[in-house]
């Protein structure tokens, strides 16, 4: 079992997109090689959705739910953060489940960014 101890690798606050990317980059190749991963939150004091969106939510782009349930486990996640993780997973699932919706969202947002940049 590959255990990722977040307090050691990221610190007591797992909140930023950048830290989420670091964790995603560790998890992804392991899951790709069908290896089980334990994400250990022991010692982590604050967990926030920008971190979880990238570290966990993005995995739903690459893997199906059955694979993730089998290979990815969460340990020592404080009870107060569980609704946040649940919401992140629901949101990512909805987003990646419908490619047409996803493309439409991305297209509109890309256009918006271009419009702002042009201002």
């Amino acid at each position, binding site marked *: 079992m590959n255990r990722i101890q977040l307090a050691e690798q990221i610190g007591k606050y797992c909140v*930023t997109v950048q830290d989420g990317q670091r964790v995603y980059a560790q998890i992804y190749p392991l899951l790709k090689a069908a290896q089980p991963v334990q994400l250990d939150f022991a010692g982590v004091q*604050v967990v*926030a959705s920008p971190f979880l*969106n990238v570290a966990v939510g993005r995995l739903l782009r690459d893997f199906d739910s059955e694979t993730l*349930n089998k290979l990815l486990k969460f340990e020592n*996640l404080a009870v107060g953060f569980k609704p946040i993780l649940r919401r992140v997973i629901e949101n990512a699932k909805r987003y990646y489940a419908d490619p047409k919706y996803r493309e439409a969202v991305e297209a509109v947002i890309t256009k918006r960014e271009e419009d702002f940049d042009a201002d």
Partner: protein
Amino acid sequence: MLVLKIPEKVNDGFYDYARLFKLWQRLNRETEAQEIELDFTDCVFFRQNGVAFVLGLARLAQSKGMQLSVKQPKKQEVWLNLEKNGFAAALGLPHSSLSSTAVPVREDRSKNEPEFIEYLKNYWLRDERVRLSDALKGVIISTVLEAYVNVFDHARSPIGAFTCGQFYPHLNEIVLTLVDFGIGIPATVRARRGQPDLSAREAMSWVFQDGNTTQAGPRGNGLKILKEFVKLNQGSLDIYSEDCHGCIDKNGENFQTRRANFTGTIVQIRLKSDQACYKLSDEPTADDAEEWFF
């Protein structure tokens, strides 16, 4: 010189914000003045939201190249509080040392989550004030952080974010106000939906509904997480942007068009300071072996 007269009383209700927004409108209209005076002469009552907002106004004026001066209030106690909470120091005015018990005003030009977390932990949620476990403080911080991150991900505020907090011992409440001077939530929603005629009320109401987001990628949970948390735990959330005032609490969500206009965004979070008031989740607790993906 542009003189902005600070209202006599600045509490944290709608009419107080409406008066503050008028000051912002005057500053925005001003095109000639090289100097600005913040005139506190008649101010006798000035809450944390006023501190954050008026510091933001000062920075906005400075960003336009205006020279700033401050006229002190006749009521000495008001000025002492402005010294204690760091307002005077932030503007380079003479001040006594900061109080160890006041929640200082904070300004962030750019996003710095770890520092903001330390601020919440060490000042707003300090043990002398609140009867909350460390675990619960972590969840509260995570929730408040959603509003803070939103400022930098969406608002495009040229002068960043301004935060100030307050503790009400007799009410068992803690309040935090975040102010930004960016483009506002409705403008972001209109652009995202491609509907330039959407009213501020419609836009604000939309962005708080499940599944709606202005962000690319599987994101956009922040406001929903904040909303669910306050509803579940006897808190409340007030949001002002353009002419819309949104109020969310356990009784529901109410978005109204008001006769007051501010292009930026104000988020005011009111929570209980007693652990017994918190429920954390209305769902059964899942154990670590749970299958999370469905």
